[in-house]
């Protein structure tokens, strides 16, 4: 893989980024409701409103607003949150680590459980185990992550009540974290009591996000494992006298992984998108939750910032996933 290939790939993401910026701008201007009126409440005089519209540049023509907006974005100025009165980008970036931790833990759960389910179902493919896992996958798949979130809240918050269903950590706990990556930081600094507490809070929202992806991984990997097991090189591995488990793990699995990696990459992006509703349900302080608050308050700069950061995140992830394919499969021609 060459530098010029990398640059070319990066260049291809530019139109996407521009498209997102335009769409966000247009959408926010066509939806009804006056953000300024929302902001200052019913006692404001029309003069107050007019003054604030000027402050936020909302009195100018739409093309004019767009040019200003684009110029500001390019200089890294995402505006000031109307409702929180702080730099919108700083607010979003402060919340991003919480969302990333949630998405990554969900991903780890999905990959680990999906892999295990696929291997178990394939190893015992002639017994009752395989149809049971198949049925479980169907259920996990047919329920979207926000419904899983509600079901988990119901199950653990109401019926069993042994896992926290709201927030990111125990508010009574001392927190003196340097970064916003609480979980990763506490793991790196060896503060396992903190990490455990954070994980307890993360478990249910992460599980809600992980379940559909886990089922997808299990399905896709079972399919490719079964296909691989029909190949001649598996017959040769059996002819060599290796046990069924060794044939499955060491001879079939390496060949069956590629489609799963592809699918997982694509669905990780959906998973990150799914954090918005799941964070809301679990009152988890990530950018999804922030987006919801911003929308309720018609906080245009904040909505813009969250959306654009989300979009950049998706584009960046897509880029990384594309790169990883070429790394994983040496036979994919780079061109």
């Amino acid at each position, binding site marked *: 893989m060459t530098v010029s290939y990398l640059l070319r790939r990066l260049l291809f993401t530019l139109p996407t980024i521009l498209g997102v910026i335009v769409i966000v701008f247009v959408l926010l201007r066509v939806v009804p409701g006056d953000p300024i009126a929302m902001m200052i409440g019913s006692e404001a005089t029309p003069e107050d409103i007019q003054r604030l519209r000027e402050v936020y540049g909302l009195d100018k023509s739409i093309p004019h607003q767009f040019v200003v907006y684009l110029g500001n974005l390019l200089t890294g100025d995402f505006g000031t949150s109307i409702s929180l009165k702080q730099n919108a980008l700083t607010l979003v970036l402060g919340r991003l680590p919480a969302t990333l931790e949630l998405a990554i833990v969900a991903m780890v759960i999905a990959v680990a459980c999906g892999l295990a389910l696929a291997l178990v179902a394939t190893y015992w493919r002639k017994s009752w185990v395989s149809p049971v896992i198949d049925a479980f996958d169907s259920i996990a798949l047919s329920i979207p992550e926000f419904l899983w979130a509600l079901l988990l809240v119901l199950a653990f918050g109401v019926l069993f009540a042994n896992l926290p269903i709201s927030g990111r950590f125990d508010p009574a706990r001392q927190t003196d974290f340097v970064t916003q990556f609480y979980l990763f930081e506490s793991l790196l600094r060896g503060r396992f009591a903190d990490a455990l507490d954070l994980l307890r809070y993360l478990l249910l929202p992460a599980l809600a996000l992980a379940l559909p992806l886990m089922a997808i991984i299990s399905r896709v990997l079972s399919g490719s494992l079964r296909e691989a097991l029909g190949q001649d090189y598996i017959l040769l591995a059996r002819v060599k006298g*290796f046990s069924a488990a060794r044939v499955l793990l060491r001879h079939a699995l390496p060949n069956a992984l590629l489609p799963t990696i592809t699918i997982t990459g694509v669905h990780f992006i959906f998973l990150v998108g799914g954090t918005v509703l799941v964070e809301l349900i679990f009152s988890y302080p990530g950018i999804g939750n922030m987006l919801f608050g911003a929308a309720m308050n018609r906080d245009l700069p904040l909505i813009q910032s969250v959306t654009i950061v989300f979009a950049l995140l998706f584009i960046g992830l897509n880029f990384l996933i594309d790169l990883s394919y070429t790394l994983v499969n040496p036979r994919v021609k780079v061109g």
Partner: protein
Amino acid sequence: MSDTPTLDIDGLHLSIGTTPILRDVSLQLRRGRIMGLVGESGGGKTMVGKAVLDVLPDVARITAGSIKFEGRDLLSMTQRQRRLLRGKSISMILQNPMSALNPAFRIEHQMVDVMRFHLGIGAREARERARDMLDAVQIRDPDRVLRLYPHELSGGMCQRVVISIAFSCEPQLIIADEPTTALDVTVQHQILKLIKVMQARTNSAVLFITHDLGVVAKVCDTIAVLYAGMILEAGPVEKIFAAPAHDYTRALMNAAPRYDRPNALLRSIPAALREKLQQDARAYDQTRVFAHA
């Protein structure tokens, strides 16, 4: 020298679902001998080999008969016992060398794993032996080839590697399932010669599956003709070639199959003969149904 055959199949019946695939197959193969198992596509040749190795498809069932390896009854062994014979005492050369090697691993890995597994030797010694084996199958520059992936090798090279894997633990019995069918004509001759050389080196018994009588004439000592899962005739190659007893064998010999057009064989068996043989098979199945009732 003991008189026990290396492979002794007696009255083997095998079906897939309710369809009979092998009907009363019996054959004997001695140490140091090569037996050609000939017959056209779908006749059940591969099933015989897979039954010996215990790698049959899930749907296939052995319904009667016995398979003895060096006097030991294979069908009464546990799965694990049979598995541990594979690769070490009984091995197999697959038809399509390009798909027989695992695309995910280097040649070295695929040669070394079976030797370390069965011979309990270390990585370094196994690597040495792998080099020697590649030398023995006349691969130039074995050190380089060991580092390559299967897709970097030609079909002929792959088959040499597969052959060296099959012989690497010096098994007493090798099932060679159409080892040259997928190869170029020019390469076929070299591979045939090679199998003979390797067989002589280890003094193994080889069950050589093919649909090509020309190949049988070149490498085999004995021959068994299989059609519709039935052994039509069997015996020493010279005897059968000089005086084939069965119409089908005669038709096969007249068919003079060509290396480059294996399907030409199918067209040249007279339809009437084919029909008669199918009838025989059905009649045979009838008697068995009554015998069981």
